[in-house]
Each structure stands twice: as structure tokens, then as C-alpha cells.
């Protein structure tokens, strides 16, 4: 996982719980890294350990931590570092979601060590679409849900996300049914 992900986790914990808790989580996760370099690749275990330790220290289920992380990623991390690009990627939620696959493809080009997930949209209507999430990593569906909710907040469009097909349940990939209110989205 690239450093920016771990950095985002750090950013979220520090912002919401303070530096001491982050140090505690790092210690519990056995992560002895002072500064995560955004475009440097780190073992996925680092991220998983951090999430697990955060779950333990913050006494929250890992799914809740990942969901919060997804929202935080969209609303803070991406905004601070990639705000311009995020805005260029679409002026509305549907537009952004439609561009998401290309956006991710370009990102994977820039970060060659990245093994990014792949997104695909289908069944696009004025108020919904199906988001296909292809990833070799397990258990990140709550993160995707958090991302979707964060995007809904960013575009001020109430959004409902439902996992309709799950990799963990034997499906080929995760499929999310994303619905929003067309009038407000346009």
C-alpha cells in the first residue's frame, strides 16, 4: 500500500483522537515509522495492522474504522492533496463516479508500484449505478462504502450504498448498489 494510505490513517486518528493515541496505535501495530512517504510503497500488513490496532485502541469494530477512513479519505486527505484533480474529475456525484474508473487507471499509471483496485460502473441511471470494485485485497468493502458516503457529502448529495455482491461471500468482486437523489445531484 502506498504511504499516502497509511498517512491518511494517521491523519484521521490524529485529527479525531490526538497524537498520543496515534503513537499508541503505532506501538500496538508494531509500526516504527516516523513519517510515511506518500508515493512510497509499504507492505499491506502495515495498513492492516494499523487498522486492527486502531480498532483495538479506539474500541471500534474494524469495519467502522474503515468506513470512517473512507469518509476521511474523500473529505480530508484527497481534498488536501488532490482537491483540484477531484474537482476536475466531475462536478456532480454521477459525473465523478463515471470518471472514477479512468481516474484510477491514471493513478495506477503514476504509481507503478501500486496495485490499485479497479472500479467499473454499470447500470447507470439518473439516480443510481452499480459500482464494481475489483481488488486483490480482502475486507476493504467498508472502506469503499465510506468513500461513497464521503463523496456524497462532498457533492452534497445524500447517497445510499449497499453491498449487493461480496468477494468475501464468494463473488468475483464486490458490487455496490449506489443510489442518490437525481434532482439534487444534477
Amino acid at each position, binding site marked *: 500500500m502506498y*504511504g*499516502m494510505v497509511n*498517512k491518511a490513517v494517521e491523519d484521521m486518528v490524529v485529527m479525531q483522537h490526538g497524537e498520543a493515541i496515534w503513537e499508541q496505535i503505532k506501538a500496538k501495530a508494531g509500526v516504527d515509522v*516516523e*513519517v*510515511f*512517504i*506518500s*508515493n*512510497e510503497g509499504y507492505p499491506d500488513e502495515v495498513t492492516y495492522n494499523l487498522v486492527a490496532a486502531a480498532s483495538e485502541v479506539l474500541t471500534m469494530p474494524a469495519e467502522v474504522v474503515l468506513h470512517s477512513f473512507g469518509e476521511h479519505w474523500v473529505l480530508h486527505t484527497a481534498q488536501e*492533496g*488532490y*482537491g*483540484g*484533480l477531484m*474537482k*476536475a*474529475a*466531475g*462536478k456532480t456525484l454521477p*459525473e465523478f463516479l463515471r*470518471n472514477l474508473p*479512468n*481516474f484510477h487507471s*491514471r*493513478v495506477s*499509471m*503514476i*504509481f507503478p508500484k501500486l496495485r490499485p483496485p479497479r472500479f467499473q460502473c454499470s447500470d447507470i441511471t439518473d439516480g443510481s449505478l452499480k459500482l464494481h470494485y475489483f481488488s486483490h485485497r480482502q475486507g476493504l468493502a467498508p472502506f469503499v462504502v465510506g468513500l461513497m458516503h464521503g463523496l456524497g457529502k462532498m457533492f452534497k448529495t445524500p447517497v445510499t450504498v449497499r453491498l449487493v455482491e461480496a468477494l468475501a461471500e464468494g463473488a468475483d468482486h464486490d458490487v455496490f448498489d449506489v443510489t442518490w437523489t437525481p434532482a439534487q445531484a444534477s
Partner: protein
Amino acid sequence: MNPADQPVSSQIGLPPKQFAAAFPFHFALDRNLRLLQAGSTLRRICGDVRPGMDATEVFRPVQPEGHLTWQWILDNRLRFFLLDHSSTGLRLRGEFVLLPGEDTLVFLGSPWFADAAEIAAHDLGFEDFAIHDPVVDMLQVFQASKAALADANKLAAKLTQQRAELRSANERLHQQEAETRKLALIAARTDNAVVLADAEGKTVWVNEGFTRLTGYTLEEMRGKKPGWVLQGPGTDPETLRRIRDQLRKGAGFSEEILNCKKDGRTYWVAIEVQPICDSAGRLVNYMSIQKDITAQRAAQRRLAIQLEVSRVLVEADELHAGLCGLLRVISQNLGWQVGEFWRMETGRLRFMDLWYSAIGDVAEFVGKSYSMEFALGVGLPGRVWLSKEPVWIPDVTCDVNFLRREVAAKVDLHGAFGFPVIVRGELWGVMAFYSRNIEEPEDALLKTFASVGNQIGQFIARQEAEQSLRDSERRYRELFERTSDLIQSVAEDGSFVYVNRAWRDCLGYEEEDLRHIKVWDTIHPDCRDHCANIFGRLMAGEQVGRVDVKFVKKTGQPVIAEGFVYVSAEEGSAKHSRGMFRDVTLRVQAEQELHKTNALQQAILEGASYSIISTSPDGTILTFNSAAERMLGYSSKEVVGKATPAIIHDIDEVTARAAELTRELGRPVQPGFEAFVAKAALGQPDEREWTYIRKDGSRLPVFLSVTALFNDHHEIAGYLGLASDITDRKRAAHELLKAKEDAELASQAKTEFLATISHELRTPLTSIRGFLQTILSDPDMPPASREEFLKVVHDQSLRLSRLVDDLLNLTSLEGGRGQFNDEPLNLRQIAENCLQEFQPLAAEKSLRLEADLAATLPAFKGDVVRLQSVFINLLGNAVKFTPGGGTVRLLLDEYQGRIRITVQDTGPGIPRDQQQKIFEKFHRVYRRGSAATGTGLGLPIVQAIVEHYHGRIELESEEGRGSCFRVFLPLVQGVSECPLGH
């Protein structure tokens, strides 16, 4: 599809749609640099990019530098171009391509952004770019680079911070190492003993200070617990127990403890022990620092002895108890067994007192002391006497000069010292102490006892002085107790401090009572405010001095006292008011009685209407009462002590009285003061009339009674003269005499009046009776005669009637019984009527009757009948007495605020000697040849009426020339008229 694109796409050989999607920011130019077509996105965001526009007005080349011309572009068409759109600032990057036919140049490029935010700023999105366009990817790369750079900066900052912290930590470490080295050096070289022990308390290391303090080396101590080596029999077991408790708990402690050196000497140390733990918290060592406090302890012991000595001396109220206490506290503080006091008496030091410890049997030693005495230089006391300095004997059993050395050895007493007690520079006694131990001399302790000796000497001197003072106080107290004056001492709160026997006896209180009462309870209620005021002033520091106080006995009876009070002002003591009073109740009562008597006498003296003058035996006036002042015009100040009664007497009278007394007494009496008192001095009353001469020279008849005043020895102490003013009495006597004379005159007048009236009445009656007898006796009387006679009878009866009327009228006027009916009158009318009445008679006598009546007169109120009587009597007299041919005038006018009535005639006038008498009753003016008739009452009646109206009547007459009567009646009735000229 835009038609303008057609030529380009067709020339390139791409379908127009793909061309448009692939190059949304392209534009094409002809040889004149006119825009032929442009990409859809370029047209959208740059409104002036439209066919026909001059490209040089729309775009400005940035790279390469130059001006847009056809040829310039051709020359540079293989180069990378940067063009700025003039109006939006949009920068395009790309290249120019010359299309076949060489008449069209196409710019193929896309916008260039350094920041992703610029995309949105130009209202662009990802979909406005061709998919192949790397601009968005470049922006992502830029963003990733920026993020990486930020991370690198953050890392660098973190590293810098950590390096700084590391450097700081290193510095601290170096400092700690230096401190540790220093501490180790200090520990090694400090005067304090430092011991490092292992967790079991066994010595690992000791410093040089430890060796110096204890005499033990590191080698001797290593592996041994310090307590095993250093503690001795004198070490306090309780302290040891506390130390062991702390060590068992692995805790530090601080204690003071008595240890033994290697050579056996004891010493006091303050020990501080701290446990040392490793990083895991395990106890690994004990570090002990020991400070030698032997000297400090000795100083504390000396200080304690001094304090104890001071306390005993302060608390002791008599010498013997003080010395016993001193022997005890010094022995106990030193831990020694015996203390003795040797008193200097008749050239020897003799036993006076001792104290010895109950621990150990020293009875034989002290028993020997009772019978001992020392000469100069002998034994410990004698040596102290000799040197007059403290003397220390480490072991008396080895001292040949110590007489009791054998018994001392027997009871195991060794160390001893003594010090002198000096009083007023002379040796008063010696104190000596004995210990079971052999005691090395302590210079500081000896100095302390030299000081203590002086302190005891001062105490003894003070005790002697206090004893002397007590003796003195006892004497004074006896004096106070035996005096008859009342003495009291009162505290500031009013409670009694002391009262003497006379006070208690007088006021009836017992000593016990005084604890339950305040001074106010002994002050009479009438006097409490006064005394409270005095008490307050006293306590405020005011000098009050003599005071009068009214006490009240316990039984409630008042006691009047006088005395003085003051406040005791001894420094540092409470304020007491002290007073000494004398019971003057009897004297005051006598004075009050005397005062009352004096006041009564004074009141009598001053209230008397008699002149009271007392003199000394030689005549000097001593008393001159108010009546005398009023009577004589002198004030008492003018005469008392300055004059004799001679100043108020007529010298001629005095001379005459002296002559009289000379004759009466048969011895010469001087015409001076003796003339007043010669008889009184003989004890005889002398009362007689005198003439006093007032200060203003006027004279005053008095009746003077002179009495001699005798003292208790029957000697003449002075004289008293009582004189009463007899002016009134004399006047009354004179008036009585005059009244008698007046009564006699009135009686005479009455007799004369009766005689006159009898005559006046008898005359007509005689005439009537005579003529009637004649007529009656002669019946044949001729009628003419009878008629003539009857006429006479008629006239006489008329006269008699008129006489009676006038008499009644006058009597009523004189008696004040006359009736006056006053009313507003017209006097002119009355005058005219009266004149009219006299007209016939005047005519008959050929008289001129003239009138001059004022036309207007002020209003006048009066009785018309009375006023008519005035006019008629005056006019009647004038007409009657004026001979024929004469004139009678009546004038009526206002004169000086009065009514004036004037009746003037030309008659014979009235002789001067009769002008007053004519106003008397029955007085008629005698005139030769005149046969005037009248009652003689007319003018008295006029005068009585005029006087009733407060008027007056005047007569102006001259014989032969007529008379003029003027009557003045005041207009304002009630105001008396005065005669003219007055």
C-alpha cells in the same frame, strides 16, 4: 460537427468526430493567419477563437519568442510552441503542422497547467481533454511529487528535531556524567561519612570521611553491616528499632544516633539513608551519608542546660527552692549523679544543699558531704573558691586534693566539676557535680557554667533584693493597715487589688467580699458618674489628684471621704488606680449644719426690713445688711471693714448724746462710737431715736436699738445695731395730728355752718312769724297794710324756699350724690335762653344786657339743668349787683380747646380780700348801703358744677370797676383743667 473542421480532418485523414475528440484544443490558420477552425473545447472557453479572427490578436507566442507570421511559424514549426490566449491567459502547449497544399497550419496542443486547481479555474473537466492527453496525468504526477516533497520535508523536519533532541540528550548525559564524577569526588572527599551498602546492607564502599570520623577503613568495613561495627551501649534502642523497620521496607530514613568510634569514644551522627534501585525498580544498594553532630549536640545540651537554668530561676520564688531546682536540672541534663551547693559563710565553704540521682547508691558520698566544710584551695569547692573559675576534675578518685576520693571510688563517682556563684563581685557559693564516668573536660561546657554561675549570682542578688523589697512592703503594709485613712488599690476592670483595714472597717466589707465586688459597688449612686469620670481620666493617664468621694457601706449608709488618687505606672505591669481617703462624714455633716444655720442667719439678715449693722468692739463695721444698704445708700462693700457707724450719724446728735450719757453715767463719754455703745457695753439696752444721714446727705429718722455681743468667755465680741426707719411713723403721727386739727376745724365749720344756716333760716322765719302774728293780732288791720304784710311774708317764704333748694343742691353736689344727665348740648341756645330770662329784670333796672356768643362751638356733652344753673347764677349775681345804667355782658366762645363762659359786669366789684371767700357757702360780700339778697350758695354751686366737669372758674374783679367771672370747661371731659398760669 463544425464545418470549419472539415478541411483539416479530411486533410489529415481522420473522421471529423475522432479528430474533434482527439484535438479539442486545436486551431487552423491560413496564410493570412486568419482562423479557419478551432476545437470545440477551445472555442467554449475562449470566446474570441472563431473563424475569421486574426490569430495574432488572439494568441501571443511565449516559446519560441517572436511575432506570429506565416513564415515565422513555418521557420519554427518543428519547435515546441507555447501560446497564451490573450484574453483568458490560457496557455496552450503543442506544435504547428503544415497541412498538405501548404496553405494551412494546424496547431495541435492542449492547455498547460502547473496546478490542478487551474483546470476548474478555467471551467474545465477531465472530459474536456482527449483521453490521450497527458496533461491530467502530469498534474497527478506533479501532485504526487508535491506530496512526496511535503513528506520529505516533514521527514527532514522530524529528523532535524530528533537530531536536536539527541544532541540535547547527549549534552544532558554529559552533564550528568560530569555531575556524577563530581558527586563521586565529593563523596570521596567530603567531611561527611558516606557508606555504600548492598541490598542486604553490607558495606560495599566507604569514603575517606567515614574513616576520619570512625577510624575504620574500607577494608575493615567491607562486607560488614555498619551497625554491627558502630553501635555501642549508649545507642538508643528505640532509634535502632525505627532504622531496622525502615530498612526492612526498603525505605530511606533520617535519624540522629549515638555511635562508637574505633577507639571507643562516642559520637553523634545525623544519618540519611537512601535506597538505590535499578531501572527495573529493584533495590540494589543503600547509600548512607553520616554527618558528625557531636559538637552540635553538645551545644544543644549546653543550650538546654542554660534554658533549664533560666526556667528554674524564673519560676523559683525563693532561694532554697531555686538552688535545689538548679542542682537537679543541671545534673539531669548532664546525666551526672550528684550535685552540691557550698555556701560561703564566715570564711569557709559550708554545705548548703544537694541533689543526687535515685539510680545508683551514692548515699555514703552525700552523707559525708553534710558534715564537710572547705577552706580556700581545699577540695573541689576550695579550688573553685581560689580560682573563682570553673574547675574540672576528670577523675576525683585519682585527685589527691579531693578529700572524699576514697568514698567517691567506693560509690563509683569519677568525673567532677564545680563553678563559682558570684554575687556583687564576691564569691557567694560553689556548685559541684559528680559523674559515674571519667569525664574529659569540655571547655565550652565550663564556659557555659561560668555564665550559669553569673546567672545564679544575679538570681541570688535579685532574691535578696526582692526579700528586702518584701520586708519593705511588709513594713509599708503594716503602716497602711494601721493608718486610719482608707487605702485602696483597684485594677483597670474595677476589681480590688488591695484595701487596708481602715477601709474594710469603715465600709464594713471582709477580705472575702472583695473578690466578689467591684469598686463601683462601694461608690454611692449619687457619686458613681463622678467617680467613673475620674476613674476613666486616671486610666487615660491624666493626673487627677485630690478628689471627694461618697462611698456606700455594705449596710447602705453613705460615707463621705476626701483624698487623692493616682495611677501606678510601673512599666510592664497592669495599671492600678490607688487612692487614700479620709472619712469626713461627721465633719461634712457638721459643715452642712453650719452652712444651713449660716444660710438661715444670712437669710434673716438679708430678709430683715431692719437695718442690721454689727461692728467689732472698736467700732469697725462687720455686718451691713441689705436693709441697711437700701436705707442708707451705701453698699456693704463700701463700709464693711472700712468704716464706723459715725459716717451715718449727725455729729450734733452724737455730741448731744455723749453729753447726755456723760451726765447719766457719771463718767466722760466721748462724742464718737462710744456714744452709741456706752450703755450697751454695760449690758443695758439702749433704744432711742436717731437721725441717720444717707450717702446722698438726706436725713432719715430711725429707731435704733444697740446691743453688745458677747463671746463664750463673756467678753464683748462686738455690737449689733438694729434700726428701723420711722419716717412713716412720724409722718403718720403728723398726719394724725393734722387730721385731728382738720376734724376740729370741720367741727368748728359745722358749728359755724349750723349757726349760719340757723341764722339764715331763722331770719325769714322770724320775719314771717312776726308779720303773721301782727296780722293775726290785728283783725282790723287796714287791707293795704295787710296786703303789704302778706307780700313780705310771701317774699320771705320764697327766699326760704330758694335757700332750702340751693342748700339741697349744693349738698348733693358736694357729697358726690348729684345726678348728672349728660347729653350733647347746644350751649349757645342755653346761653340765649338764660339771657332771655334776665331781660325783664335788666330792663327794670335799666341795665344793658349784652351778649357775644360764638356762632359755632364744638360739641359739648353735659347736664342741661346744671349748665343752666351756671349761667343763671353768674348772670343773676351780675344783674343783681350791677347798679342801674350799668352793663352786663355774656360771652361764650372756644378758648384753647375749652368752652369759655365769661360774665362781665360794671358792678361795684369784689374786694380783694373777699375774692376767695365768695366761693364759700353763705358768704356774701358786705357792701355798705347794699341790701343785696341771696343765699350765699350760688357761687359754691357754680364752682361744684365746674369742678364736676373738671373745669375751673376764675375771677377778675376790682372794687368800683366791676367783676368778670370766667368759666373754662374742657371739651374732653375727664381731663382736669389747670388754673391759668400753672
